[in-house]
């Protein structure tokens, strides 16, 4: 770990400006990911701006009937919020499927979105990694890539975004609100926050340096049944091999609309819109779920160790859709 200076932020605008002024500065909140990365010298900030005490820790109703989740709301608090539990159960389920109680007590909403990949090679500074050191290559491509991406990856990087929360938020069409260093506020769909690696896997989000996430806005709860299903190697405290968040609305025996987000398979929460089109208006039957699953994984590319994720994702998606429809 490199020596660094530490400062507590007083307000959002100053904090954004302060980080923007120093290329080597980082925001820190729960520190559940950043501190580990600093100890390994994968992140080497010279200055930390602690934003955990900023007044961004409330969950408020929006005029539209949704919720505005402050960026500093802890994962535990968000999962336990009665409004989230009743109106956005998929989000509560996803949060509780992630990490451990201790980590959820520390981790912030924005920090969860911005956590970095768990790729083994990214975590080892002796290994080539285009994300950590652009141009050095990707050790995972031909290496041990059991946990890696089958969708949205590139020849430069096959890392997966590890968040559960973000997958549920993607299915809920959440929006991310940020403050730029000049004080202006912008919002973007959560689907625009994370970038696919392409040739520049070190550029992970659409945020500029110093731009701070201040809230996640949940639109009014969509009609229908919500469900989160996480598949992992042990009962708890493991990242998803595959996860599915879905919101399905039925009308009689037919599906009126369906939203799907898949985790554990791509560099970002994966919204297979084509699969959602397949389901819209289809009879709520196995054939539609199968067709949707095939469609969702149509472009998937296995790299050897992660080949199993393609059939696994299809099977998980089919079963999660079926289970959601059953209760819808």
């Amino acid at each position, binding site marked *: 770990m490199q020596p660094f200076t530490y400062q507590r932020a007083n307000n959002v605008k100053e904090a954004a400006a302060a980080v923007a002024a120093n290329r080597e500065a980082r925001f820190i909140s729960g520190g559940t990911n950043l501190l580990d990365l600093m*100890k390994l010298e994968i992140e080497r900030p010279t200055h930390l701006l602690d934003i955990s005490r900023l007044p961004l820790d409330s969950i408020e109703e929006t005029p539209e009937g949704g919720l505005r989740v402050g960026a500093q709301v802890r994962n535990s608090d968000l999962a336990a919020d009665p409004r989230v539990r009743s109106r956005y159960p998929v989000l509560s389920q996803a949060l509780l499927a992630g990490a451990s109680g201790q980590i959820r007590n520390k981790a912030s909403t924005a920090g969860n979105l911005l956590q970095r990949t768990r790729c083994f090679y990214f975590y*080892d500074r002796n290994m080539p990694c285009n994300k950590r050191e652009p141009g050095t290559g990707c*050790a995972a491509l031909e290496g*041990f890539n059991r946990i890696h991406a089958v969708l949205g990856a590139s020849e430069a990087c096959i890392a997966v975004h590890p968040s559960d929360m973000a997958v549920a938020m993607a299915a809920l069409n959440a929006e991310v609100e940020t403050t730029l260093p000049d004080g202006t506020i912008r919002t973007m769909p959560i689907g625009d926050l994370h970038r696919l690696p392409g040739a520049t896997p070190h550029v992970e989000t659409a945020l500029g340096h110093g731009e701070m996430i201040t809230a996640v806005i949940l639109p009014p709860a969509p009609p229908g049944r919500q469900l989160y299903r996480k598949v992992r190697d042990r009962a708890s405290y493991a990242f998803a091999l595959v996860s599915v968040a879905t919101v399905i609305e039925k009308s009689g025996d037919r599906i009126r609309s369906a939203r799907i987000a898949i985790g554990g398979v791509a560099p970002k929460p994966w919204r297979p819109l084509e699969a959602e089109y397949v389901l819209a208006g289809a009879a709520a039957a*196995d054939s539609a779920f199968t067709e949707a699953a095939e469609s969702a994984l149509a472009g998937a590319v296995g790299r050897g160790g992660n080949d199993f994720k393609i059939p696994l994702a299809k099977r998980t998606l089919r079963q999660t859709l079926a289970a959601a429809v059953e209760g819808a």
Partner: protein
Amino acid sequence: MTETTIPEYRSSETGTGPVGQPIARVDGPLKVTGRATYAYEHAVNGAAYGYILGAAIAKGRIAEIDSANAEQAPGVLHVMTYRNAPAQPAFGPAVTPTVPEVFTRARPMLNSNRVRFYDEPVALVVAETFEAARAAAGLIRVRYEEERGAFDLPARLAEAYAPRRTNAGFETDSAVGDFDGAFAAAPVTVDATYRTPYEHHNPMEPHATLALWSGDEVTVYTSAQTLANFQAGLASTLGIPRERVRIVSPFIGGGFGSKLIVHADSVLAALAARVLRRPVKVALTRQQMFANAGHRAEMVQQVRLGADRDGRLTSICHDVWSATSGFEEFCEQTAVFGRSLYAAPNRLTRHRLVPVDLNRGEWMRSPGEAPGMLAFESAMDELAEKLGLDPIELRIRNEPTVDPEQGVPFSTRNLVACMQEGARRFGWERRNPSPGRIREGRKLIGYGMAAAIRPNYIGAGTAKVAIDATGRVTARLDMTDIGTGTYTILTQIAAESLGVPIAAIKVELGDSRFPRTAGSGGSWGAASAGSALHHACNALKERIMEAARSSDRSPLRGANDVAPIFVGGEIRVGDRSVSLADLIGRIAPHGMEVTGSVAAARDTESYRTYSQHSYGAHFAEVAVDSDTGEIRMRRMLSVIGAGRILNPKTARSQILGGMTWGIGAALMEETVLDPRYGHFVNHDLAEYHVPVHGDVPEMEVVFLEEYDDKANPLGAKGLGELGVCGAGAAMANAIYNASGVRVREFPITLDKVLPGLPATAI
């Protein structure tokens, strides 16, 4: 040496005394209140902190190492590399002349520009703080000349060689009868090859040391399982007599066999403390432990079983190929347990090694049985299915009357009783022998079982026991408590023997100044240290009675004709009785101190004339998700026959821990070696998975009533590692019973089960 027991002083076997009671850990309050001080926590004035920089290649040499920036960094006191490290003896040959020398040989660090394995220490930075040392380590620039290493085991089986012996000095091969002929003639056979992966111990407390010199003597606070070996190993490395090395290790946050020999932390702390003339602390980081603190090697195992149609084994062969470090051989005794387990007239076991460019393998909980029984007890399940026999019935039909290879009787062997009692308690009759038939919603449910066997052993040792004029008893020995409950059972043994309350006993462990024992390892700790203490207590009673009968000041003067009874803090002789404290105050106002010893099992007649093992039977119920292949243990039962149980509470904890290791080995534990770089890819606890609470929902342990009078005067047998043995195979067999998918490559992760599951019907 008090080898023979003295009947009149024999401790109670009836369970009325403290031995056999489920007494809570006597050191528990210290641990849960943070007052048990672990190695790195010992506070001394002026301690400096070391941080190890590991090699970025697996094989080659350091061409250039530039530590100038690190030396200039704030707070840095010293940077040690191969160029300036104090002289140490060379490492020596890959195989030591004798078995014990592997524990005592010199293990030099930073003594060459050669890199033998990935993350091998290439520098130690010592600074005023840990953070300063770690930051400065990042400033060291190393240029390597890399050589091509060899890492792949399965592809290189043709290069395998036969070692001279296995770990613990067992024969490399064993052969009885004509295996090939009998196997060829057998009407029913299984020929199955299994793979088990690299695994790492990962005790909660990492390897850590505080070293401080006083003149030419060094005191080392560390986390060690066997202090005498540790002392000798460090003395050899430092090139000083062992009397000048004191090892202190009163509390240990888990060892599992990874703390039997010195590692980089203790050697480098001692070297740096001598150079700097101030105390130095060095700990391995969790990530560094994967390369620098031992592992269980990857193995390929072929099991061939031939049986007649009634299920009687005619031929057994267990062939093991294991990876080993090229510079220091380690051959896990993976097939040795099978030499005593089932009857068969024609038998063969063989161990072969394939050198790889890794650090040495070490003794990982249940060495031999852990990987060996995973394979062998899976093969027995496969044979049972081919025969159309219940797996328990198959094992009963092959129960030997004497040890099948040694030809000697068993001391006690309750394997059949364990299986039958377990079947009754577990509801084994509900198992459907046809796999994949029991469904609960989307889950496939299966039952599996496996046998457990683990050798009993006694390591030589001595205990010192003292009583003061107030009747307080102190026992001292260099034994360790690695979390197993040693403090507690030794307290119980002394309290029972001397007939005093638990509170009157103080057991002091973990200091090499105390009498030498065999320490903690190989499941021998309780029986070995316990027997030594038992003998010491007997000797103390004898000493007390000699004085009591002859002293003018003793109310027991002349009480020669009746055997004394030590009970309730008193000595009763016929109708006379006296308080122990009162008596000692009269006859020995300065107290008394005696020692007692136990000989190594191999030097005793009963070890040569009886086959001594602990036994058990494991039962597991698993659920396999029919959509995803996710496997979860639902409930597990182990029935154990391990002689007299000294403390059912701590014994149960040992078995529970072992069962959990079995679950881990079956379902998730695997360190992946990347053959391109020679490094362990998933070298942290985020990606090296061990079971969490959610993975161990319902576990039960049952101990059979047993007393093994051939094993030792306590009647107890080792059980620390027994819980692991076969536990993973019970899981694997349950997975097959649930799903119909037989996975022979451990761990059994969902990706290996998935292709065998039916296309889901929703």
